[in-house]
């Protein structure tokens, strides 16, 4: 193992130096201009797709008042024909309304955006809503409609009193979902941008016949691992530059600087560390496959032909992973976390949504095991089908017989 690692580091050092000290590395550093645009478009689309409903409001009211409000909600829903509507959930009034309101606003089991109290006579809305926001506007309309239905068209209009308290549990959940989506999209864009480069990593060695010198000196597995590590290090260097530039831009542009970004469940420091680790895992997993697939190509043209199907496969994996957002403990969430290629995406999103850390340790160990499996398989296939080593597999011998 030590010898394999030593040999891999010799290969990695050469590849890293050859890449970073080339003129083309400057172009590489400018590359994110393109994925940033894709990321913005992707982010916009996924956010739009996620806006099917506005979050839920807890209505602390008696059954009669809630029934009138629910009827008004139903009518509004049919009138607005599928437009995003705030959802209502009745809560039984309690002797200590202040305590009930606080409890509702921080509940993570059944998160609400705000609490409506005072019945139809003195409606007060408290929570993470703004007086001029769509949720408050919709509720004011529903209350007015319910009052007119109950007291007749001459009923006096009573304004809805809105108290904005900042973040409620639903607002936090919504922001975390946003962070999860943004994290996943960034991870996907970086991986698709960087890991695909591994397809062409063995072309130089094959076309210059250096592969013979390498294969006679070190195991093929060490060559593959070395190339993976070199490109990963080069990618992390690029990402460090891009993140620093991006953070500086956000700090300059956003009103409250970096603090304006929605916070993940595990906190920013842990989340950013996770992002680095999961990028590395995603890169190593996909990279090992790409290296194995690309190792069979002998020319740049063959690599180009291969790059489209592997990019499509990556998009499928990303789509699978994005289904888990919002329900990381559901069947799809767990399935995507177990499937090795989507696991890093899903686990990063989970870090944004849920605070537990132990699943991440398990996931990283799981992903590392699969990196080893993918690398060993890629190296074995390369020896067998490119170097033409060893006896043909048993099934082929049987078929020939």
């Amino acid at each position, binding site marked *: 193992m030590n010898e394999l690692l*030593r*040999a891999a580091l*010799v*290969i990695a*050092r*050469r590849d890293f130096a*050859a890449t970073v000290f*080339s003129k083309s590395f400057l172009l590489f550093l400018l590359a994110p201009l393109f994925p940033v645009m894709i990321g913005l478009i992707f982010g916009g689309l996924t956010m739009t797709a996620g806006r099917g409903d506005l979050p839920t409001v807890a209505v602390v009211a008696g059954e009669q008042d809630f029934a009138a409000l629910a009827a008004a909600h139903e009518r509004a829903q049919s009138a607005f024909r599928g437009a995003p509507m705030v959802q209502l959930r009745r809560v039984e009034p309690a002797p200590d309304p202040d305590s009930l309101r606080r409890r509702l606003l921080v509940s993570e089991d059944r998160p609400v955006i705000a609490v409506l109290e005072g019945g139809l006579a003195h409606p007060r809305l408290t929570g993470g809503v703004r007086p001029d926001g769509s949720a408050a506007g919709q509720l004011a309309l529903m209350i007015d409609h319910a009052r007119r239905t109950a007291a007749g068209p001459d009923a006096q209009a009573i304004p809805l009193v809105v108290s904005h308290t900042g973040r409620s549990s639903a607002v936090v959940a919504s922001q975390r979902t946003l962070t999860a989506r943004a994290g996943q999209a960034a991870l996907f864009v970086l991986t698709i941008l960087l890991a695909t480069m591994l397809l062409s990593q063995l072309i*130089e*060695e094959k076309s*210059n*016949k*250096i*592969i*013979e*010198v*390498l*294969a*006679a*000196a*070190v*195991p093929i597995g060490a060559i593959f691992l070395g190339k993976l590590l070199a490109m990963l290090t080069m990618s992390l260097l690029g990402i460090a530059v891009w993140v620093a530039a991006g953070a500086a831009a956000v700090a300059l542009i956003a009103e409250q600087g970096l603090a304006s970004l929605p916070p993940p469940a595990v906190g920013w420091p842990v989340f950013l560390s996770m992002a680095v680790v999961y990028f590395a895992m995603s890169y190593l997993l996909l990279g090992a496959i790409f290296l194995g697939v690309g190792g069979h190509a002998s020319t740049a043209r063959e690599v180009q032909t291969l790059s489209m199907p592997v990019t499509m496969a990556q998009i499928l994996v990303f789509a699978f992973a994005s289904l888990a957002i919002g329900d990381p403990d559901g069947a799809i969430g767990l399935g995507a976390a177990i499937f090795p290629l989507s696991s890093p995406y899903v686990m990063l999103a989970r870090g944004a949504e849920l605070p537990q850390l132990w699943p991440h340790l398990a996931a990283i160990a799981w992903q590392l095991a699969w990196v080893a499996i993918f690398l060993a398989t890629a190296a074995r296939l390369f*020896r067998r089908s490119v*170097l*033409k*080593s*060893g*006896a*043909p597999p048993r099934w082929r011998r049987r078929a*020939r017989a």
Partner: protein
Amino acid sequence: MLRQAQQSADIGSLAVEATDLVMDFGDTRAVDGISLQVPAGSIYGLLGPNGAGKTTTLRILLGIIDPTGGSRRLLGRGRPLEAARDVGYLPEERGLYPAMQSREAIAFMGALRGLPLAEARRRADTLLARHGLGDWSRRPIRALSKGMAQTVQLLGTLVHHPRLLVLDEPFSGLDAINQGKLERLIRSEAEAGATVIFSTHVIAHAERLCERIAIIAEGKVAFEGSVDDARGRLRPIVRLRTRSGDGPWRSALPAAARCDNGEWVFELPEGGPEPLLKALLDGGAGIDTLAIERPGLHDAFVAIAGQATAQAMDEDKVPQA
């Protein structure tokens, strides 16, 4: 010093041992039951026509590929890559990273074989200076001539002081001067105690350098032994000029004797030179000149490789059950 101590211990042992190696590429059998024994400290030649299976055999011995059948031991190791730190390999198709500096290319190959990078760089500088390439050490490989690049690759093969040097067609592409240099270098490595195996289809190099050879044809070992043994496969050639055009002495010549421009050329008969000489003198040949030449390795190679090829073709004609 360490290499010499190790090589003293190697004396009498086998640097390479291959038993019944078989390699199939699809339906083609490239290597067909090759067995070799290369004594430690010797210069060993692998001779054969193009496509005979020399390169495939070397690749199997080095562990680049695993054989379909058979076994091999390299410097006492069953897994060749375990001996990689003590092996230097120059492939037939030369390969270097074009953008790499000469000294970095040599140091990289040394580091691959286990040398610390700083030590590998130091040795690379020394080697380049010793071979007249000191001024080119910081130049990229792509700026070097073909001969220079080949020298750089050869130095990369030697930088870690290997106990076993495997050179696949090392003389191809070199001019006469560089071929001479390479021959001297191979000799000096052997004198330093290294085992050298090289493949070639140019017999003259093997004749000058090798103590032992294997002649490979159609994937099989047609001959394995010393150069003298190979020559011994052919009878000496007699070249005779007589003053007499015809006479009883003609009966002393073998039936296959031929006459080119008045010179008779034939294999020395079984009885040796003395009975031949007596018969010629008694028969009134009037000997003008008589020379008995020992056959060269080239003659032996053509005879052995040609014979094996014919034999293999005959085997192919045998109908399969």
